């Protein structure tokens, strides 16, 4: 990784991704990601600057803007780890 301290950089990225890592796993991830990033540096050989390309750019058909049935509240909540009063219930948000 370009940063001089790859394990520290991995910890920073893990925080961005809301991902808890085992302390002992971070150095291994750091060395593996460094190797992968060294490899993707192959792209620096190319100076080309064409437009970005996806496979479906020419057309994205839109359906008619008419209401159609969607999932019921009950089915939407069917897999919730915790639900109450027709809502997803989560731990405290404020005061973190």
């Amino acid at each position, binding site marked *: 990784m370009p940063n001089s301290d790859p394990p520290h950089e991995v910890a920073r990225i893990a925080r961005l991704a*809301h991902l808890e890592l085992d302390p002992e796993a971070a150095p291994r991830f750091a060395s593996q990601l460094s190797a992968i990033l060294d*490899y993707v540096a192959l*792209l620096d050989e*190319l100076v080309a600057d064409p437009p970005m390309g996806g496979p479906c750019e020419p057309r994205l058909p839109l*359906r008619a803007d008419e209401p159609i049935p969607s999932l019921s509240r009950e089915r939407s909540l069917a897999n919730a*780890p915790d639900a109450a009063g027709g809502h997803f219930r989560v*731990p405290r948000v404020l005061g973190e």
Partner: protein
Amino acid sequence: MSGIAGLDSGEILRLIREQQVSALEVVRECLARVDTMDGRIHAVLRLNPRAEDEARSQDRDIHASRAGPLAGIPVAVKDNLLTDGLETTCASRILSGFVPTRDATAVARLKAAGAVVICKTNLDEFAMGSSTENSAFGPTRNPWDLERVPGGSSGGSAAAVAAGFAPMALGSDTGGSVRQPAAFCGVVGLKPTYGRVSRSGLVAFGSSLDQIGPITATVADAARALAAMAGPDLLDSTSSPAPVDDYIGSLDGGVKGMRIGLPREYFGEGIDSEIAGAVRHAAERLEGEGARVEEVSLPHTRYAIPTYYLIATAEASSNLARYDGVRFGMRLDPRGRLGEMYRATRGAGFGAEVKRRILLGTYALSAGYRDAFYGKAQRVRALLRRDFEIVFDSGVDVLLCPTTPTTAFRVGAKIDDPLAMYLSDICTATPSLAGVPAISVPIGLSSSHLPIAAQLIGGDFSEALLLRTAAVLERLFGRLIPPAPEGAAPGPGRRT
């Protein structure tokens, strides 16, 4: 193989039509085969407890002459496709216990055509991997050699078809996840054009790359499956309104007069010489059938893997943000605080490869690096697509090349070296990035009795042409059937 197991869907449909066998008997025999063989292979994560009831329902439709074109055909479904009322885990702890409230469109269409889902198959967690070793529920083994991987990420589906559990399975292909396991297991795997099959109900990995594709015993099976699934879907705005061709009707068209290109970049460094030789031999045989074969170039091919692993991980890091313990799947809440719940749930729920890719993708999209990594990869992607456009605009109909750089490798051989694992996709990632269709078809066995496959790549929506060309290869080289596993010593496989 005996009885139903190992027959292709055409043969099963004929037996059902002639009333030699019922849909229920077909499904029971396939389930019995899973029961006796899957302990060693581990292709199947769970059986569909309603499969026999659904087969009975098909039998009633058959007797009432209102059966669909796939009535009674058993299908195995990769466990990243939603199945109504049947647990869908993506082989991840984070989704264990998740029971979808609807079918993926592709599954719904196969069922509407009369197919019976018999089981959900193993995969690399969230389809991230090339060996099916990244499953939270343990690896799948290759029916050709239980010490070897079946490929991935749709390794469970490919192994299930090779082992004769079903003539037809569904996989998903983001950078080769249908074609590479099909090649390793000696079966047929088709990645349709991006947009040909609705992605609705496919758990998202790399949304600009993901396509659902059939993994099947024969080329005709793949044509039948695609015919049932293809076409626009209101639930997926990237599904294409392009007309759906007659895939089954064009299977016998042959290759006379067809221009077939051999992209030289797929026959050089990193490609096993035995595989390159087998594919060149296949080209000579197609020439004997009246095709014109010429060498062509796709000059940016060497940039495909780095491009793929930046775009796919960037999209994955975004798509996998939804697994946060709020709406579905597992939740760890050690201290009753939201942020800690997110981190703990994701830390415990995801396996190592998924974490690696989330980290890489997050990095590639993060402030200060986005243009250098993700932006650059998107620009190179356009160059890769242009390579194909130039070749197909020059009048070449189909490209012929290897599907994989090696035959199936040993379990454990690459699991600690992510980069070596990523290079397994070297022949398959480029068509995925370009969005074009490609099919893998077996063309013989290596000196160590492992399947070798050829890949055919076509222009946008050329699936009928690919299937027709693959049908010629299948006629020339035969189907591959793995050696009998029941306690028998590993021996040479055979052709039919």
